[in-house]
């Protein structure tokens, strides 16, 4: 089963990369892009039997390795069975 993990910086953490991208877009004329936050995206291929197991495994892996809980939070999207 596939799971998608989205890791983003916590709102309280300054994101110099996102900020730089936003400034670049604005200098290209995209004034309506007010802000950009950059995150990470992972695709996991999980050998599990159920959506509940997939959710559990993806969360554990995300919490332990993929995200640094000091500065990042994550959310999970499960794919089709």
């Amino acid at each position: 089963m596939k799971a998608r993990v989205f890791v983003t910086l916590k709102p309280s953490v300054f994101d110099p990369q996102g900020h730089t991208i936003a400034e670049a877009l604005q200098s290209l004329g995209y004034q309506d892009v007010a802000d950009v936050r950059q995150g990470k995206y992972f695709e996991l291929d999980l050998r599990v039997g159920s959506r509940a197991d997939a959710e559990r495994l993806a969360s554990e892996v995300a919490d332990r390795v993929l995200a640094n809980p000091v500065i990042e939070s994550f959310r999970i999207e499960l794919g089709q069975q």
Partner: protein
Amino acid sequence: MKFAVVVFPGSNCDHDAYYAARHVLGQQAEFVWHKETSLAGADVVMLPGGFSHGDYLRTGAIARFSPIMRAVADAAAAGTPVLGICNGFQILLECGLLPGAMLRNRDLKFHCEIVGVRVERTDTPFTSRCAAGEVLRLPIAHGEGNYYAPPETVAELERAGRVVFRYATAAGEITDAANPNGSVSNIAGICSAARNVVGLMPHPERACQAIVGSGDGLKLFESAVQTLADRGALQEAHR
């Protein structure tokens, strides 16, 4: 004194750390590969700079799971002086032996230069030979040295005197201009609650002889030797 220099795939300042301990200070030193599970009775443990695992995922994020880190955590708990330099500091943060995390430098540039680093505390095994408030000239070489911790953590570090080094001008002023990467409160290095685990982004091992531009870093190694010698003398006195 035996210095153990842990080597991860991608470490590149391990030889400088070894050289400082073995050839400048004349102590015993040995490399310990990250897959080993024992530090073989090292008196001082060093996690060197570099790009362990290519900085993939996050700096130090994969190295923190190396087999040797169990032994490093045990040594830290036992009071052994542990020094994390640059990537080594990042690894200590990722495995929770020190609090906080590293962000990308605020200007997104990799900074490779000699900076002023003020010694805030001399009550750690790596700063006992420094004078409080003295400014060391040490090289930095990092793209992710922007130290971050939640406000309550920073407050606790300040309250407990656990900020060991701060970026400063040559005159010892803590200014934004002297901060190369945007780290909160100009923090360049911190220590654990028990004070034996110290992490810093600047490279003292690359500043141990005047010929390389600065010899100020040698004091950190001399401090470790002094601290252990004093502990040994104390143990002898109690026999």
